């Protein structure tokens, strides 16, 4: 198929990645009449390709290229990880934009405050919630209460929590925006087979295509961004499905490959002018990698729950999201549900023998909580690259260096105890928790925003401090992780960034 835009067309904005950040910034720009070429490393699935089989879907959509170190749970497909995500969309709280001012300087962390506030982002949160169809916002009803949410809510009440909700999911409770209402299929993490869960795959991308200002190129793995003698980005080199290299010229470049690929691409584009990677005069590129403190807890309840019936994550408790230093750690966490298939249940319970088998024998009676908590940034948590090993594109194999901070261990102990209390209040037994369960789906921080160019890679717009026409449009720009699942904030920032790009273009500054 012929390209809509010529490779030599240097008037286009090139967006790298089609997930939450890339898909959103593409669609926003295209709706403003700005021509966009979106390069996506994966291929494009139809809804009919999505089946209720986690193993099969894994091979269809996961990012399987070789990586070392901490595993991630990401996708290489049109829509990126919005095909796999749970749909949980809480906002950041005000203090989470000011972690340094609020928590003080924790040992061995690199915390700074965001260069933006909740007030500034709030209008974009509104827009993001509307685009995504978040339950409980914009006149959208709450999500239906699943069996597992009812357990969470009953336990919350028993132990005195006050703020629990089945809102804040970007899964249509009722038909909206061309997508149907949720059928409680389960298998959200294998992709939503009916498109009730928001994903750029069937939301932003087709909307952008309808504008006539957008071209999606699939199986286009970007390997390098080129610049001219003035240091301005001029084009993006990608390998097509046959491995042949092409250069798409560009007016501006938005990088949204999720943290590992965003880091690798900017590093791999090093030249004598940018010896440590594009936009890395601060030395922060690839550092301050955050994943959230995550925790899974399971229990055998006294009656049937059948948590496989319905959405994987169907509600949340907000009471622990606040910063209450008397708990012995900085920041807070959200308590969510997390229904699992049998295999993931066995993996989460861990171990082997009678105890593990007993858990699975009681599969119908299981309930689970999952926690997403603030993860302080550390310089040593970073993406590095293997010195000699190369992948199929000839790119250095990434190494994900990640260790939990002591603050996260303290938070884990608190969260594990709380979930135990909650589940035991309803006579749940054999409560078991694991730290890090499900880790690697939330990835943030390797090109963080900063007011001072020495502290981060990008400015308040996600624009490179060093290079005016280079933007980072994914969770890499996060300054702190907050407690919230990151996608809503990624989308809000991408909408805001698109406004900024359009404005700069109209002023002929880009």
């Amino acid at each position, binding site marked *: 198929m012929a390209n809509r835009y010529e490779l030599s067309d240097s008037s286009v904005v090139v967006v790298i990645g089609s997930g939450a950040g890339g898909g959103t910034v593409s669609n926003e720009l295209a709706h403003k009449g700005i021509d966009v070429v979106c390069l996506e490393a994966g291929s494009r699935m139809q809804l009919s390709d999505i089946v209720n089989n*986690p193993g099969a879907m*894994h091979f269809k959509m996961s990012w399987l290229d070789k990586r070392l170190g901490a595993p991630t749970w990401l996708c290489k497909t049109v829509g990126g990880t919005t095909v796999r995500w749970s749909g949980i969309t809480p906002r950041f709280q005000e203090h989470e934009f000011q972690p340094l001012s609020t928590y003080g300087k924790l040992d061995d962390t690199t915390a700074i405050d965001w260069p933006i506030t909740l007030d500034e982002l709030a209008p974009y949160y509104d827009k993001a919630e509307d685009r995504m169809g978040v339950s409980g916002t914009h006149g959208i009803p709450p999500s239906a209460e*699943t069996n597992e949410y009812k357990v969470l809510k009953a336990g919350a009440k028993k132990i005195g929590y006050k703020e629990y909700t089945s809102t804040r999911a970007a899964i249509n409770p009722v038909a909206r925006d061309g997508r149907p209402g949720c059928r409680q299929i389960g298998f959200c993490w294998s992709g939503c087979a009916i498109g009730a869960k928001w994903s750029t795959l069937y939301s932003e991308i087709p909307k952008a295509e309808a504008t006539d200002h957008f071209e999606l190129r699939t199986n286009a793995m970007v390997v390098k961004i080129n610049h001219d003698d003035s240091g301005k980005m001029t084009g993006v080199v990608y390998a097509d499905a046959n491995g042949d290299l092409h250069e798409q010229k560009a007016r501006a470049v938005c990088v949204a490959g999720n943290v590992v690929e965003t880091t690798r691409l900017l590093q791999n584009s090093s030249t004598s002018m940018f010896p440590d990677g594009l936009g890395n005069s601060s030395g922060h590129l690839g550092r301050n990698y955050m994943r959230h403190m995550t925790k899974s807890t399971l229990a055998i309840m006294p009656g*049937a729950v*059948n948590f496989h019936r319905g959405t994987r994550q169907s509600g949340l408790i907000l009471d622990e999201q606040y910063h209450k230093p008397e708990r012995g750690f900085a920041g807070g966490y959200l308590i969510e549900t997390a229904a699992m298939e*049998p295999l993931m249940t066995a993996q989460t319970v861990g171990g082997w023998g009678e105890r593990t088998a007993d858990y699975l024998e009681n599969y119908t009676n299981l309930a689970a909580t999952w926690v997403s908590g603030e993860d302080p940034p550390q310089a040593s948590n970073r993406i590095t690259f293997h010195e000699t090993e190369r992948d199929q594109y000839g790119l250095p194999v990434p190494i994900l260096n990640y260790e939990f901070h002591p603050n996260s261990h303290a938070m884990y102990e608190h969260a594990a105890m709380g979930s135990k209390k909650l589940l035991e209040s309803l006579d749940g037994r054999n409560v078991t928790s694991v730290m890090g369960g499900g880790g690697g789906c939330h990835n943030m921080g390797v090109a963080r925003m900063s007011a001072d160019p020495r502290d981060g890679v990008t400015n308040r717009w996600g624009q490179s401090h060093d290079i005016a026409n280079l933007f980072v449009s994914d969770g890499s720009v996060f300054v702190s992780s907050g407690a919230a699942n990151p996608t809503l904030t990624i989308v809000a920032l991408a909408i805001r960034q698109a406004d900024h790009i359009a404005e700069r273009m109209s002023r002929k500054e880009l």
Partner: protein
Amino acid sequence: MNQGETSRRRFLVAAITYSGLLSTGAGVTLLRASNTWADSSNGNSDELTRMARLLYPHDGIADNVYAEVIDSILSGAATDASMTNMLNQAVTALNAAQNGDWFEASENDQIAAMRAVEHEAFFAAILGNVQARFYNHPKVWELIKYPGSSVQFGGHVDRGFDDIDWLPEDA
């Protein structure tokens, strides 16, 4: 081992199993792909089948299901020297712990021998492979009343997604 190390270790184990889930998650479709292991004269299948049952002991599951899981692993190992090596290492280690004949030892002794090697790489590899195949097996799903795919039935929206009936009235 201090608290931090324990937690870190659990994180790493969780991380490995989450990715392991994914790299071996197609268990069902791999089952009974072939019987090539039989032709390759792998003499360890009885021991490994026994090991699979002790890993995930379910009285309601017949031996042939565990054997099928091991068949599938052995068949994959036919073209995977490192896996073959780990399977052999496991049986050798278990036998060494039980005077050369782990298979004939009592159940308690068999389990004790497994506990003694559970931190070895070969053990983790076998566990991950057994787990992925076993807990995706239709007979196991039947036993634990997990129905699998629901989209063909229109999901659970009209089939009990909110039918929980034992929660306390005041909750």
